[in-house]
């Protein structure tokens, strides 16, 4: 085992973890804070990736730019989805199983729509930094992974600051703890939840554009992320943004180290092994309360 290889493996893991954070944040907010089992989140990420692809292919936009520009659109989309979900299930207390079916339905519909419109071919984007890398001492870092890492860090930082330092942010945290108390304070928990769910889906816009920077995307590829993102949200501690970020990095580094030193086929098994171990020792997750 060489020192260089170890450093490179850790660096690659951190970069991957930053990207995982971007994909998992939405789950952490929706599932962790709002208790909405949005298994359709990865498909919104794929939708973000297709937005990046379309703008890149038609107008030559940088995927990150598309991700940012489309964030408000995804925010509105998220609000709309939550309104439907609330009116149909949550209000009646039927969210447990039927809500799950609802999000399954959304997942399939978005996938089928993407197939109908764009076909089933893999899609990629072009950007000047894809394929290039830079060196930090013995560590070589590919921009293709560095940009998603930065995106993930900024997104996680942004959501963290928003939740901790703004009225709405604190209200969202409040609604996750005790929505009745929030109502007594004169705030409307449904409105707060709608905003929070909007934010959760809004993160998918940037996450999608980061995904398509890393590699090719096709409509059903989101399913591969469902397990991983929920694992991260649970590992970090439900609803803890800092925890989600830390868990993403841990999973990224564990995957990368396993892949480098023991063989890549073990990487998923080892990551989920870490999840089981953490849950055995700390059932609420790393940063859970």
């Amino acid at each position, binding site marked *: 085992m060489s020192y260089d290889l170890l450093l490179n*493996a850790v660096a690659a893991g951190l970069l991957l973890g930053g*990207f995982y954070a971007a994909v998992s944040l939405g789950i952490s907010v929706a599932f962790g804070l709002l208790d909405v089992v949005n298994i359709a989140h990865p498909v919104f990420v794929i939708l973000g990736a297709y937005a990046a692809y379309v703008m890149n292919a038609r107008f030559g936009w940088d995927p990150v730019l598309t991700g940012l520009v489309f964030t408000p659109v995804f925010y509105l989309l998220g609000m709309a989805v939550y309104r439907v979900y609330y009116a149909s299930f949550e209000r009646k207390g039927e969210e447990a199983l039927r809500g799950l079916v609802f999000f399954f339905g959304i997942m399939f519909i978005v996938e*089928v729509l993407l197939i109908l419109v764009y076909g089933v*071919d893999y*899609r990629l984007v072009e950007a000047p930094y894809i394929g290039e890398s830079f060196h930090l001492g013995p560590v*070589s870092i590919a921009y293709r992974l560095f940009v998603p890492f930065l995106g993930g860090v900024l997104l996680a930082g942004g959501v963290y600051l928003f939740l901790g330092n703004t009225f709405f942010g604190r209200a969202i945290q409040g609604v996750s703890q005790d929505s009745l108390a929030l109502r007594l304070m004169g705030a409307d928990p449904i409105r707060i939840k709608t905003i929070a769910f909007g934010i959760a889906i809004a993160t998918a816009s940037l996450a999608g554009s980061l995904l398509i920077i890393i590699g*090719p995307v096709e409509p059903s590829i989101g399913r591969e992320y469902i397990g991983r993102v929920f694992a991260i949200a649970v590992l970090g501690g439900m609803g803890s943004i800092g925890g989600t970020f830390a868990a993403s990095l841990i999973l990224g580094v564990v995957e990368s180290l396993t892949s480098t*030193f023991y*063989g890549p086929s073990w*990487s998923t098994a080892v990551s989920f092994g870490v999840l089981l171990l953490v849950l055995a020792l700390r059932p609420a997750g790393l940063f859970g309360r």
Partner: protein
Amino acid sequence: MKRTGRFWIGGWMLTAWLAAAALLSGPWAPPAQAAEKPIKIGFGMALTGGLAANGKAALLSMQIWAEDVNAKGGLLGRKVDLVVYDDQTKPASVPAIYTKLLDVDKVDFVVSGYGTNLIAPAMPIVMERGLVFMGLFGLAVNEKFKYPGYFQIMPAGPEPALDWTRGFFEIAAQQKPKPQTVALVGADAEFAINAVAGARENAKKMGLKIVYDKTYPPATVDYTPIARAIKATNPDVVFVGSYPPDSVGMVQAAHEVGLKPKLFGGGMVGLQYAAFLTKLGPKLNGIVNYDFWVPEPTLNFPGIEAFLKKYQVKAAKAGVDPLGHYLPPWSYAYLEVLGQAVTATKSTDQKKVAGYIRSHEFTTIIGKVKFGSNGEWATSRVLQIQFQGIKDSKLDQFHRPGKRIVVYPEQWKSGKIQYPYSSAK
């Protein structure tokens, strides 16, 4: 209240169902019009799921074949109808599809869907009923079944698992000085495992020392740790058995971490598609990879150009691979073989048709086809091509000869290999 809940679920389900129905009712159900009953050819095809990009392209070319045949008056004076169901790239859905094709749709012939995993589950039904079964790109499916009515259009050769990768290793063995070490890496899924197993055998035969031999899960996001681990073993040859997204990941990662063995490639699926050729562009230079047909002068068979012209017009509308060099000519050809056998025997009798296919040579748009006793090609035609002189990411260059040079086997060779890999960069 409950009813509203149900209504919502019902509504979504209905919408999903309608969307799926819209997807499945395309132009591939030509109306029956001939006076005599049409000859129905049934199959499942991956129109959604992981292999859908290829499955849809294959279907398109099969429709072109049906159009071509019907324009000439059909088979035995009867119109040809294709009956297709989406197998969703799910092996479990295949037995039901073929049962329905045979018992409900009463098709005259069945042919396979695309890919090993979706061909194998149809075999028991096909064998039980003694049907002739043309296969589309299954690797070594008949090794265990040993069914005489099975014919595989993919030109892997009589020993499919070994022949598939033999060329790559023979190229390695021909180089001077001869490479000494090899790294084998592949996806943890059926085709890639078979390909890597064949590569392992071939590497041993050629006397190469295996310094890395690992698989990775198909959902891998980042391939740089793998490329780096391989680089650390400093192999002369790197063989990769991968599926489309991982092929892209491996090429990018190798480029980023500076993995430059003397020979790189082998069994990377996906490097034949326009989307990846154009996006990877110059990064492909030097890679030696398997292929079955490329627009090189040595492979300019009669009919292939006319077919590709038709295909490319339709592909643009259907949103599938705009080049169509990889699978479409073969999905056209496997129906050509069936059609020619039906015409020659003047019969739809399964045994007669199978017997004819087994004992005759066929002229198709992908050249002359002759099957061996196990239903594979009598002699392998797995090409090894090298990407050379790619300067940009324009699609146009891949329509013409000169970018994907056939370097193996001798019979189809269209140019010289640039060796080592880094010299072609």
